[in-house]
């Protein structure tokens, strides 16, 4: 199976967007493997096929870019990165020019500066809107370029009126094509990284636009709401549905008991909204901020992440038991279901494989259901007065909480899903200096979660959390006996698809919590549990195709899928920009927070055990648990009427 580091799949991109193959001699030292290029008089030795842009970065020469993105294949369309290459009459796009011979490059000449300035002028001539009213102001690549190149006036004019209707149909994503610069980063994201193919270029010439199928509203086409397009949009053309005013309204309404639940990934990224280094954890400062903003209780979604592990793990054990002992036909491998983008992806593209999906709800939705039942009863609050706000790294969570089936508490289980970016804005608006706040903890009765819950925020995290629990429940031994510090490192990392095999050589007694479901573990002895992890739905597609074809992944028992590259830490609601380096820093923050927890396994979370004792009395996957914590899926298919 592919063990390539995460990278966009360009196999189906048009050739115009691919960098061509270059026959490179093997090994770094082989003759012809490297080439020396001169950039602005400075010589630099680079591997054959390196682009001029990459080579320039190595020696501190900054070439401006717009259509280029580290996660995406080459486009070479915006032309802002043009440079002079000796021997060429015209300028060359440095992002798309592979160095295969010792060329000499100039990046700063009068013609180049003039060309770049013209290109910015042309964009501004088509870019409707004021920076004041734009959500991407101060975080906009076009604005930054205009500043860098000293645009003093609109040389070729500036649109005075809106030309396109803003598409606000989607629960998650807003498209304002008046701000689009046609860099096609969203198109490449949607097609190459996510394999969703929601966005493409329509028409040609000045009529070309980024468009959905037949120009339909986003809500009516195949969009999984992952928001990866937002993360890569250089301007404010793509944003999330902003619900901050709705949340403020709830906070201002004194009759409402407004509860915040916060997912693990935002805390590793929120600091970026306050100019902190990516990967600076701000969990406990954030809690203080919530309270100052007026939230009545602050909970950690990691609590229900732990609960998810128990429910989903139990479901897996039941499936395995049925398959291995009772020889019943059950669908294996079981797929995780906590990523709403992934859920919608499989509903659209592989509806015939929905029986592989764990019926467990995502942590966000489990929490909503529990807050409006268990918590409401405990606190004596009428659930109709409770407002659940979920802070998520995700734009698809907005869609998820609006799914019609998500009201098992008798009310809409989660009222609002807001993104890390939206929270950042609210904190700014509230005049809160987040980095300098005192720290505070989460509220009871859900208390502090475990390290397993925290790592849900990274690709492989759900799998690692599940394995920690399953290994201990089955062997009766501490997972530390098998993996140092309980760090199951083989499932970590950023490879697109990873397979891990865990041979079960010994079994222990069945723990009390699931005793009523399986009599003993003898049937698992000698079994090699095979699990896999995939992130980015293009990789998910590869996994599903492999399963359909009966490949190695069809032999797996359990597979974790995350719609976004890097998992939730790279989610579509996270601060912009994103790139492999930023995602790695966020992952580091998440794993170090995990290491700092005293309790690091879901089944040891005292509050989780408490809820089974007090509320979900027939245990994991029992009747009550099924009612509140499990869901069903909708086969959607690919045809749009």
């Amino acid at each position, binding site marked *: 199976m592919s063990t390539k580091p995460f990278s966009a799949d360009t196999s189906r991109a048009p050739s115009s967007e691919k960098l061509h193959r270059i026959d490179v001699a093997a090994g770094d030292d082989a003759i012809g493997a490297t080439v020396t290029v001169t950039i602005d008089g400075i010589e630099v030795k680079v591997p054959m096929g390196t682009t001029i842009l990459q080579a320039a970065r190595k020696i501190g020469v900054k070439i401006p870019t717009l259509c280029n993105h580290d996660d995406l294949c080459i486009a070479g369309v915006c032309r802002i990165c043009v440079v002079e290459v000796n021997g060429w009459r015209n300028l060359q796009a440095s992002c798309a020019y592979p160095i295969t011979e010792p060329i000499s490059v100039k990046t700063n000449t009068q013609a180049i500066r*003039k060309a770049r300035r013209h290109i910015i002028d042309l964009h501004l001539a088509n870019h409707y809107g004021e920076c004041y009213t734009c959500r991407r102001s101060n975080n906009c690549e076009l604005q930054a370029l205009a500043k860098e190149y000293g645009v003093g006036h609109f040389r070729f004019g500036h649109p005075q009126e809106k030309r396109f209707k803003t598409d606000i149909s989607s629960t998650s994503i807003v498209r304002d094509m008046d701000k689009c610069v046609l860099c096609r980063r969203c198109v490449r994201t949607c097609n190459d990284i996510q394999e969703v193919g929601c966005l493409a270029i329509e028409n040609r010439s*000045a009529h070309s636009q980024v468009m959905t199928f037949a120009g339909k509203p986003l809500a009516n086409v195949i969009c999984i709401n992952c928001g990866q397009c937002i993360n890569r949009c250089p301007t404010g053309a793509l944003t999330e549905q902003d619900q901050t005013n709705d949340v403020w309204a709830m906070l201002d309404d004194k009759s409402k008991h407004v509860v915040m639940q916060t997912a693990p990934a935002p805390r590793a990224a929120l600091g970026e909204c306050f100019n902190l280094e990516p990967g600076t954890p701000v969990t406990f400062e954030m809690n203080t901020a919530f309270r100052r903003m007026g939230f009545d209780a602050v909970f950690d979604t990691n609590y229900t992440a732990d609960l998810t592990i128990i429910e989903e793990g139990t479901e897996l054990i039941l499936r395995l038991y049925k398959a291995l002992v009772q020889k019943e036909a059950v669908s294996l491998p079981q797929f995780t279901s906590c990523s709403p983008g992934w859920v919608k992806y499989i509903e659209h593209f592989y509806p015939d494989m929905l029986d592989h999906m764990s019926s467990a709800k995502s942590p966000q939705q489990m929490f909503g259901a529990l807050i409006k039942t268990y918590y409401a009863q405990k606190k004596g609050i009428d659930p109709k007065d409770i407002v659940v706000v979920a802070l998520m790294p995700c734009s698809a969570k907005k869609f998820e909480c609006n799914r019609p089936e998500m009201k098992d508490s008798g009310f809409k289980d989660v009222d609002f899903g807001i993104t890390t970016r939206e929270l950042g804005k609210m904190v700014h608006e509230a005049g809160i200096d987040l980095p300098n706040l005192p720290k505070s903890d989460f509220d009871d009765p859900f208390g502090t979660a475990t390290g397993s819950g925290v790592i849900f925020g990274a690709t492989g995290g759900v799998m690692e959390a599940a394995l920690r629990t399953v290994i201990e429940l089955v062997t009766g031994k501490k997972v530390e006996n098998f993996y140092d510090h309980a760090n199951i490192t083989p499932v970590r990392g950023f490879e697109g698809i990873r397979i891990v095999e865990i041979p079960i050589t010994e079994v222990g007694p069945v723990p009390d919590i699931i005793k009523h479901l399986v009599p003993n573990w003898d049937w698992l002895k000698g079994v090699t549990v095979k699990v896999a992890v995939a992130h980015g739905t293009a990789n998910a597609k590869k996994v599903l195709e492999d399963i359909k074809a009966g490949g190695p992944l069809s032999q797996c028992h359990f597979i974790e899928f995350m719609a976004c590259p890097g998992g939730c830490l790279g989610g579509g609601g996270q601060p912009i920009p994103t790139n492999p380096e930023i995602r790695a820093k966020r992952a580091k923050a998440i794993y170090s927070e995990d290491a700092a927890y005293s309790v690091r396994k879901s089944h040891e979370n005292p509050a989780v055990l408490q809820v089974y004792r007090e509320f979900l009395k027939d245990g994991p996957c029992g009747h009550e648990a099924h009612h509140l914590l499990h869901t069903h899926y909708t086969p959607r298919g690919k045809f749009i009427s």
Partner: protein
Amino acid sequence: MLLTEQDKMTKLITELVEKNNRQRSALIPILQAVQAHSGYVSQFAMQVIADQLDIHATEVYSVATFYHFINTRPKGKFIIRVSSDMSSMMKGAKTIVRQLENDLGIKVGETTPDGMFTLEWTSCIGMNDLAPAMMVNDEVFTNLTPQRANQIVRDCKEEFRSHRQPIGRVGETATNTLTYASYSANTALKKALGMARPDVIAEVTASGIRGRGGAGFPTGMKWNFAATAKGDLKYVVCNADEGEPGTFKDRVILAKFADMVFEGMTIAAYAAGASQGVLYLRYEYTYMRDALEKVLEARRAANLLGQNILGKDGFNFDIRIQMGGGAYVCGEETALIESLEGQRGEPRNRPPYPVNTGLNDAPTIVNNVETLASVCCIIDKGGAWFAGMGSEKSKGFKLFSISGDCAKPGVYEMPWGKTIAEMLDMVGGSGAKAVQVGGYSGQLIPSSEFGRKLAYEDVATGGSVIIYGPERDMLEVAENYLEFFVEESCGQCTPCRDGNVVLLDGVRRLKNGTCSTHYLNEIVSLCDTMQIASKCGLGQASPNVLVALNKHFRDEILGREANA
């Protein structure tokens, strides 16, 4: 759509997809076949095609909307497209359109309420010498007058009632293609097959012939690159996407000397070791397709194509025809290849070049129709014979498509190196104010420079000449050109997509007398950027006209009366 109609459509698409081996590259022919069946490609059809080719419906939509001749919305049963090239405009195309609007009771861009007729402008259809001209569906009508146009509309109605399709009427183009006419078919191929492959390339190199499409890349060098490129599968593609306004010589060659083109392709295939050939024929020339297919059939029957051609062991080569979709930019070779792969016709980043990484990533020779036909003469009579004609840096003869204000428009064979004045004398165009050489993307030459030579070292050209008489308004010319480039830009790169819009707006300001000298200087400065920063030749060449106007006709274009 009725369910039964959906079932029928699904069945049709299934058959088409199967016939094309489920290849995504067949997307455009599939779209065209669906359109031939139902007049347009419905959203349902696009989704079925996507499903069966295992791509996203949005990709199909994206490709379909790129091409002007693929309709994603219903149009009239008869789509009338009047050519908007400058030669047609000078010969009264606007009058034709006005009368059609009156007769049909609709404006350009609209469809009659009964769903019978749609009226549109279209980019040059390659009938400049027979202008004004228009297409009705796939059929071409030339030498139009308002009366003839009205008659054609009435004929369409009549033919619709009797379940027949209208049949186009293309006039005769005046030609003096002497060298081609005296060529004896297949002598070159027979001779080439008796030569070693490198010797064939050497002969072509010795002739000094350069690409006849306009870019002028040395053909021998191109063949040599492809021959030495690694790859078991190689292609020879004939670029018959003759979209450069004012050019129609390829149409004449394909109509009269198609065998020579296919023979040239076969020689190229032999020289480079290619096994597959494609003729990429512009949609506007659909009316010639059946005849061309027949030529191919005959060649296969005579073992001039197929396995072990003419007994040459192991030399297998065949040619298929693929239609364009109505996109000028597909004349750019990498855009053409994208189109052949079933994508939007957007030029690729270069390097790499098609000779290394072309169609389906295989080494590919893309040659113009005329280049391939001329190769036959070169192999037949020798490279030295060819190099003996022309000027120092421009070898051999060339076909020129001449139209506009002259007495004898047509296709003329001339050796390189003649002056523009000599050419004008030949066609009865003396007294012209300016001449457009090389199509809209070429150069506008004012009368003061008519002593310049038609040659790569002076005024290079793919062979198109449009003559402007003394009364012509150069701003109207520029407006027409820029309308064309705005429409035909593929839209991917900023300078071309947005720059042409700014230039067109500037020209209209000049025409309306509302352009300051300062702003004229601004847009002329933008021209510099477009010429060096655009991704492909289209955007690099589109500002030429404005640069020329500014240089040669600046006094004529400033200070116009408002709304003159």
